[in-house]
């Protein structure tokens, strides 16, 4: 079964580029990605550009409305994702716990719906 791990973190408190913290985080992500690739668990995964680059699209009454950023006033923003192929939720949770951002942000694990 495939699970999407949505990685949420607070951009305001995120490690800044060119700091040792950022270096450590990147190393963590590289090691994790390498491991799940080797284990054939990884289906896909990418980081996302910051929330400031986001555009929200809605179609209302046949008209396309585009607005800047998501509206939700949440502290944590979606910063990236992995799609993992795991045997059950427990395995997916175990992997999600190893995503470096889990240590300070949060990971939402959602099963991907399957159509026959």
């Amino acid at each position: 079964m495939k699970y999407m791990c949505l990685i949420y973190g607070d951009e305001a408190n995120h490690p800044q580029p060119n700091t040792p913290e950022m270096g450590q985080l990147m190393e963590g992500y590289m090691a994790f990605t390498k491991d799940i690739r080797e284990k054939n668990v990884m289906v896909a995964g990418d980081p996302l550009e910051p929330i400031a680059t986001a555009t929200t699209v809605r179609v209302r009454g046949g008209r396309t409305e585009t607005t800047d950023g998501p509206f939700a006033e949440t502290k944590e923003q979606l910063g990236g994702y992995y799609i993992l192929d795991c045997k059950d939720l427990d395995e997916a949770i175990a992997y999600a716990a190893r995503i470096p951002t889990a240590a300070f942000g949060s990971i939402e694990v959602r099963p991907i719906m399957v159509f026959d």
Partner: protein
Amino acid sequence: MADGGEDAGRAALLAARASYSRLVAYLAAAAGDVAAAEDALSDAFRAALETWPDRGVPDKPEAWLLAAARHRLTDMSRHRAVQAQAAATLRLLTEEAADRAAVAPAFPDERLKLLFICAHPAIDIAARTPLMLQTVLGIDAGRIASAFLVSPAAMGQRLVRAKAKIRDARISFDVPEYHQLPERLDAVLDAIYAAYGTGWDDTAGTDSRRRGLADEAVWLARLAVELLPDAAEAHGLLALMLYCEARRPARRTEAGAYMPLSEQDVQLWRRPMIEEAKRALATAAAQHRLGRFQLEAAIQSQHAMRLTGGDINWASIVALYDALAEMSPTIGALIGRAAALAEERGAAAGLAALEAIDMDRARSYQPYWAVRGALLARLDRTDGADAAYERAIGLTEDRAVRAFLLTKMSTIER
């Protein structure tokens, strides 16, 4: 061999009902789906009620029900256009064939898996105990709702949501691995204790539904102990609940008046239950893995000394509460510690401990104010005692406890 009479059918059905939880657990573990297992089993029971009176009771009613339920499950998953289900169907079909070949209809006891599923960290915490009561004990949602003081519709929805999550997110039906066991076992035991607490709060025993829940919690703890004989805390929880249950007949007078522990007639305590509690606590202690339930049971065992004419050793109780406050500083433990300190070192020491408790946690907790009232009264601080008792009374739902507190308040020496 049966005469096909309706009575025989019902008798066999009753016998099969006794193994309800084993049947549900086995089917759910095979299908990875609790809701479907329950539906299939209830269809099987219905089919049994329809056919047994005419055709006679099968030799092995349990095996018959299992086969019928499996058949139904296979049908159901055939209809479900979800690819993932195909695997489960195949598994079921293979097992069905294997079952027919087997002479004895023996099937493994998967109830432990079911308990762990119900207490899975991915399941809504408010749904865990109700889920256990429904799936492991077969108690209907309406009754569970009344025990948890929520509407049957809300409880039904909570249970449906939890079961859908088990199926759709595919929560593992494996017994957790060794390193996960402590956390998961804690959740199982907490849920059992929550069920007991719900039953215990109904001190009056007027609501038979809620009193029943205490019995069921004890049943679940016995099951946990049977399935996990090495789990010290499971034995500890069983001991704790048995000590409390043993005192139930003494908690009210015949007229229904509330009796605090210190004034209970120990002759009304159920001795065999206390003996069993002692044995359970000894089994737990032999494992050398101390936990909160063992500590709480040990505190109860000190109170049980009164049964043999012994004095209560308050110093031991304080020491046990100290350990409990360190390991699991629940508001109840901190208040118990303050009350024990008051017995050992005087009311002032007890009050100091009580006042060290965070007011945010104590504000609407009735026992805090009842103990505070009693301690202030002993210290001749009558104004403060009155205020504390009034607060406690305001927070009490139980009529008999309210009457008891009113009497305490009116008999303060002024």
